[in-house]
């Protein structure tokens, strides 16, 4: 059982859908959305509850579109 729980919030209007964050997510939490943002890109989105807040996605994001939160589970 995981001892930490993470969450990501993607700024969908900054995201340009480059997909660099998808392969670096070890938990396979990130995928590209079906729908488009205002610029016409499929933006990154969280698809499961497995995020552990490792920040890998956020630090490779060229557009700084991802904010990461993490809590320790008691």
């Amino acid at each position, binding site marked *: *059982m995981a001892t930490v729980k993470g969450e990501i919030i993607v700024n969908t209007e900054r995201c340009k859908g*480059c997909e*660099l964050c998808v392969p*670096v997510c070890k938990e396979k939490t990130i995928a590209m959305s079906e729908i488009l943002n205002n610029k016409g890109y499929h933006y990154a989105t969280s698809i499961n509850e497995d995020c552990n807040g490792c920040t890998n996605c956020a*630090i490779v*994001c*060229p*557009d*700084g579109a991802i904010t990461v939160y993490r809590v320790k589970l008691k």
Partner: protein
Amino acid sequence: MSHIPTKDEVCQPENMVYSRTCLLTDNALSYCPGCGHGTAHRLIMEVIEEMNLQADTIGVAPVGCSVLAYDFMNIDMQQAAHGRAPAVATGIKRLYPDKFVFTYQGDGDLAAIGTGETIHVCNRGENITVFFVNNGIYGMTGGQMAPTTLPGMKTATSPFGRDTETMGHPLKITELVAQLPGTYFVSRQAVHTPAHVRKAKKAIEKAIQYQKLNKGLSFVEIVSNCNSGWKMTPLESNKWMEENMFPYYPLGDIKVPK
């Protein structure tokens, strides 16, 4: 372990572990999707924020994709003519020796039209920091061949691939300046994976610290992709970069202080 927090409970300001630095403006980056410039901008700004240098930093960005840095870096910036950023930075640093002065240049700028300025600023050992983003192509103007273009690489002006007999060899300017006595710290990094981003950030931190210690010129090359210029997707271009750019431009510290 009974209560699993909800998304709203996790996404509170006190739980935030990573967010974009406030030294990047709110303007959406106008670089192509997946371009390493965005990551390079963010790393430099993060280090400046962590070292609390925002009020004391003057950046110089010349011409190329790097010219857009003015819109995104929330610090004092100065325009320079194509390739002349090291000369302008020299003037700024000599007038304001207490300020942190850096240049942010691409390969078409630093290694082509600005080769003279680059080599001489390194030879003089001006106490500035040079950030050099090398993507092997002229990105902004439509993907023409640059001095750093690899042999056989197809560009708009070398449609059959770079022929080294007629077009010369790629210029390893970072190895070149490492030989000069004026440079203090010379390093080559990349920003396409989390591990490389962390290493690159450490190199940028060192480069800034050495300037604060008045040690001489620090030179950090960042090997980056140009997926539009290379006509690939961002992930393909990163793979191509690992397979082709890194053997010619090996990563790591090239000159470290003794």
